């Protein structure tokens, strides 16, 4: 209890929207327990974007699901704190959590095709969330929906209100989902690969829109992606995830000017190395490990070019290198 109090004090000073510490999420299977999220911690300040970057199976989506308390069984959160607006989300009842989800925390998912109900009109789908969390009259809700549609860039909200999802393009559907996510003025927006299914130009527009919303309304955002290129321009902080752990954390400027972890460096090399006339890409050897079959010691060591004997035996702790700068690697332990 004392600890929670201290954290609360901390939140007031820095205006931190959400602070996660020591989060563990496990999935029990027949062949043993899989640690999908292993000792994950970070915080997001008001009006900032934190990019959670990782490859498939790195646990980035599981982290988001844990924050929302939507981890599908047989997965469950075993330990940790998620302090959001002064409360630990892990201590809330189901009902209390429902009043936060979609209300104080908005969500945007990857597939704009499947996240909308195909047989319900756009306007009604947006209105549904507002009606669930607020006690408003029908006409007030309708006005709010028009306002939201305009906010996400539709110039003709009356026409859009009565349309069905199939009448919209992928980018427009994503705008509708954003409208739903921000409909109750959340203080945190969680976006899981929100632009992966979209084309380059549409992606730019959606990111532009999200940026405007964040700075205009002082929202914080957890942006989950595998795309470092996007984060370089869009994020304020990045966390690099691998095999359920955060390997490196830092501000966008620090991280991209000087990535520390060999995995981060490898990732950046494999996409940014196209400068001169190299004949080959600098690839990271090996393959992304399965969570059910992780190596001993540092989870990255079989692919690491700086591997030392200790890396094979023990797993390094996250070490603080500077302001908001952490790395989990024996190269930086002294």
């Amino acid at each position, binding site marked *: 209890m004392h600890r929670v109090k201290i954290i609360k004090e901390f939140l007031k000073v820095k205006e931190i929207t959400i602070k996660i510490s020591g989060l563990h999420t496990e999935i029990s299977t027949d062949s043993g327990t899989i640690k999908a999220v292993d000792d994950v911690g970070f915080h997001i300040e008001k009006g900032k974007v934190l990019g959670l970057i990782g490859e498939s199976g790195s646990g980035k989506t599981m982290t988001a699901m844990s924050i929302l308390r939507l981890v599908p069984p047989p997965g469950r959160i075993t330990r940790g704190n998620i302090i959001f607006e002064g409360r630990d989300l892990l201590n809330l009842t189901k009902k209390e959590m429902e009043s936060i989800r979609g209300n104080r925390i908005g969500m945007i998912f990857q597939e704009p095709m499947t996240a909308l109900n195909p047989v319900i009109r756009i306007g009604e789908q947006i209105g549904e969330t507002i009606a669930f969390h607020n006690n408003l009259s029908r006409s007030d809700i309708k006005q709010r929906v028009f306002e939201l549609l305009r906010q996400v860039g539709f110039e003709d909200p009356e026409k859009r209100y009565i349309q069905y999802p199939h009448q919209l393009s992928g980018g427009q559907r994503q705008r509708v989902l954003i409208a739903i996510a921000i409909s109750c003025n959340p203080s945190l927006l969680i976006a899981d690969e929100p632009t992966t299914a979209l*084309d*380059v130009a549409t992606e730019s527009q959606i990111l532009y829109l999200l940026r405007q919303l964040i700075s205009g309304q002082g929202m914080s955002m957890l942006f989950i992606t*595998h795309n470092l290129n996007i984060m370089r321009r869009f994020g304020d902080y990045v966390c690099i995830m691998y095999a359920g752990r955060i390997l490196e954390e830092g501000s966008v400027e620090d991280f991209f000017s000087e990535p520390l972890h060999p995995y981060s460096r490898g990732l950046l090399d*494999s*996409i940014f190395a196209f400068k001169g006339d190299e004949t080959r890409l600098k690839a990271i050897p090996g393959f*992304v490990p399965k969570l059910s079959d992780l190596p001993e010691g540092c989870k990255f060591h079989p692919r690491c070019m700086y591997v030392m004997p200790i890396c094979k035996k023990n797993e390094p702790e996250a070490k603080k290198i500077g302001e908001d700068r952490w790395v989990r690697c024996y190269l930086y332990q002294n």
Partner: protein
Amino acid sequence: MGPLLSVSELKKRYEVKRSLFSRDREIIRAVDSVSFDLKHGSTMGIVGESGSGKSTLARCILFLEKPDSGRVFFKDEDLMDVKKNELRSLRRDMQIIFQDPYSSLNPRKKVYETLSEPLLFHRIVGRDSVRERVIEILMDVGLNEDFIEKYPHEMSGGQRQRVAIGRALTTNPSLIVADEPVSSLDVSIQAQIVNLFLDIKEKTGISMLFVSHDLNIVRFISDDIMVMYKGMVVETGSKQEVFYNPLHPYTQMLIDSIKGDFFKKEVDYNTDISQGCPYFPRCSIRNDRCKKDTPVLIGDKDHKVLCFRYAN
């Protein structure tokens, strides 16, 4: 010697109903009068967003999809004219690699069966030396003998894609068509597979059509680049020209987006047009002429563009 592959005025249209119950049909021009040559030993990268017709073009070239009109010359033979059994023997010489190695490999076949089947079917090696050849192919794609007895589900995405590439190489083709071969893979694995393609190209001198939406990867692997938009080629030329001197506003936008200009707002987007330049609704430098007339590709053999701005 002429080019390995020569495509001229290739067209493919699909008719779709406007809605489930409606009678009027909309014609989608998936590939609209595409022409290009592919030289022996060179790689052409085809870039475009989803729906630009780049995959349909790839499939039409291999006759996996029958084009409506146009000509495809492969080794000076007109594929429109060849008979079915002749096409089969030509197929041996042109192979395709698909995007998703999870669905393009038969889940019930071991790697050995996947790779030995084409070798035996096309009588490339005798029964007694099949195993040896399969192992050689596995080594060529960065795997080893241990993989022979594996089923697809026992391998990672990158390893599966290596097997798919190996299968394409079994028949010693002169042309490989790779349709988004790395997009379903993890970032750290993509670079490995791109390097593998470069190794194969260097070793065998094979020609490739590399279809991708990722300009960065295309830039790394190709000699020539072709940019498609709504079924049409809007710009084509050598890698240096297209990448360092992009002329079409669409290509410029694509390159800006990978370089860093991110938050440019675009002009209205969703208007469908039946005539005029295909890029008109999104173009930032459009004028009245672009609305009425359809531009044609102009330029020399190193660099061509589909835009009135460069016409006299």
